[in-house]
């Protein structure tokens, strides 16, 4: 079973929920797909036993074969190839690796080369194995790295995905192949507004979902009203407690220090299983 933990708004507690869930359930694979700002390892404190570079493919021009005809420039929808004074220029940061330029090139002057975009890290802490991607600073394209993280999914086991914030491509890439998506929100106007957008996306990709209300007690009741109206089940509430915030700040998963919460996360996991059976 693959469960994605996501939220529209950043900082609602996705990583905290993902890590506490993983530790409480045990024997799971945790994949941190927030490759721009990965944080799960800071809470889990795993031993990292392997790192490998991740590359995407970008076009490479054989200047002998290229006659600067401009077919590739015309074809490229992402403005990643230009011709300046009869020379082909490639902008790797704009390239989506679609392969079109090589297809249309009449002189077969374009081949592919690898460009490093980030690192995959493999580690484990007790019976939780962690994979996280780390985008190189100043590289704009996170989706190929998220795909590389997702390629590590062990489909026969239990998998938890920590999703990046937002509701655009990185979120869609993470959530779209999951069996279930847990949306973590907070009971504030910002939390509600961004939850609605995330719900919209999940309905479009037809992924079943449930909500975790974090920092319950702050803000207002509108998140609860919305979930009731839309028929989205609130599967867990985590109250705003200074102790929980302090544990998080130190990089300690609170369910380790407050064992009653380990049980609550186990119950949350069973609820998800039941929902998926129905």
């Amino acid at each position, binding site marked *: 079973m693959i469960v994605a933990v996501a939220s529209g708004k*950043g900082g609602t507690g996705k990583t905290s929920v993902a890590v506490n869930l993983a530790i409480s359930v045990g024997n799971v694979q945790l994949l941190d797909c927030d490759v721009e700002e990965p944080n799960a390892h800071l*809470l889990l404190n795993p031993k990292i036993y392997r790192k490998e570079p991740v590359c995407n493919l970008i076009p490479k021009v054989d200047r002998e074969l290229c006659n600067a005809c401009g077919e590739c420039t015309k074809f490229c929808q992402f403005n990643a190839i230009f011709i300046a004074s009869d020379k082909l220029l490639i902008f790797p940061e704009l390239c989506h690796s679609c392969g079109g330029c090589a*297809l249309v090139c009449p002189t077969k002057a374009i081949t592919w080369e690898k460009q490093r975009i980030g690192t995959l890290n493999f580690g484990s802490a007790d019976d939780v194995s962690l994979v996280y991607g780390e985008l190189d600073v100043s590289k704009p394209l996170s989706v190929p790295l998220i795909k590389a993280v997702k390629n590590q999914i062990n489909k026969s086991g239990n998998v938890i995905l920590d999703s990046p*914030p937002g*509701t655009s491509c990185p979120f*869609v890439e993470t959530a779209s192949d999951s069996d279930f998506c847990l949306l973590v929100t907070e009971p504030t106007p910002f939390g509600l507004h961004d939850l609605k957008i995330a719900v919209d996306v999940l309905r479009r990709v037809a992924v079943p979902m449930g909500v975790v209300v974090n920092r319950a007690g702050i*803000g207002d009741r509108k998140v609860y009203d919305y979930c009731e109206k839309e028929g989205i089940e609130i599967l867990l509430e985590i109250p705003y407690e200074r102790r929980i915030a302090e544990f998080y700040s130190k990089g300690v998963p609170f369910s380790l220090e407050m064992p009653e919460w380990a049980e609550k996360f186990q119950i949350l996991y069973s609820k998800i299983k039941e929902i998926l059976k129905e």
Partner: protein
Amino acid sequence: MKQLAILSGKGGTGKTSITACFAVLAKDAVLVDCDVDAPDLHMLLHPEVNKETEFIASKIAIIDETKCTKCGLCREKCKFDAINEKLEIVAIACEGCGVCEFICPTKAITLAPRVSGKSYVSKIKYGLMSHALLFPGESNSGKLVTLIRQNAKVLAEKAKKDLIIIDGSPGIGCPVIASITGVDAALVITEPTMSGIHDLERVLKLLDHFNVVPFVCINMYDVNVNNTNRILSYCREKSIEVIGVIPFDPIVTQAMVNGKTIIEYSPDSTISGEIRSMWTKISIFLGV
């Protein structure tokens, strides 16, 4: 004209709440909400929309069923898994690259313009605002950020405003890079948590890469004073000025629930005082 960006790396550290206060203090600036896939600034600044424009930055493939022979070549060549087993276009995955259109032997596929969101030009109580909404699941957030920043520049020039304040998005990828190119300074709002520190370091590296002058604000500093001290000494080492240290206070959420900025909701609070003093430092630096 000067441009200031508010960033954080990590989400939920208080970017938008602080940006909205700066709008009030600057009195007559152009605000830009660059968190286009989860914009929140409008809930505090209540823009009156003057102009709404469809955002079209990419294309989408469309298959003409009457011409399609179901050969499956398009599905085989698509790098984005955007054509499913039934040989239908999966809109959310299609990047509009045109490979399928090119290779289709029966010319059954064409590319059509894709509306990915909307951009708005609005009036707020404290100046003007350029903002947008990316439709759920759409890509091209970086291009939309570039567009609304361009709109803001045009607005500022026309209305003779000398400051643009940019509310950034979390992360360090495409939309964040698009939010900081060419700005005069960036204020990074962080929190004294392990994640906050980790993400602060990465966002500072990014600012350094793009030659943007960084300032730092530590929000909710009292949640972990040890970590606050770590951030302070880290910034001292790197010669980065920490211009504000803000305690945790429930009035931040209360102001948000009431749809107000902290400065409007609770002008005499400690937090409002600290935000005013940050604003003074930034406005002196920018000369506005």
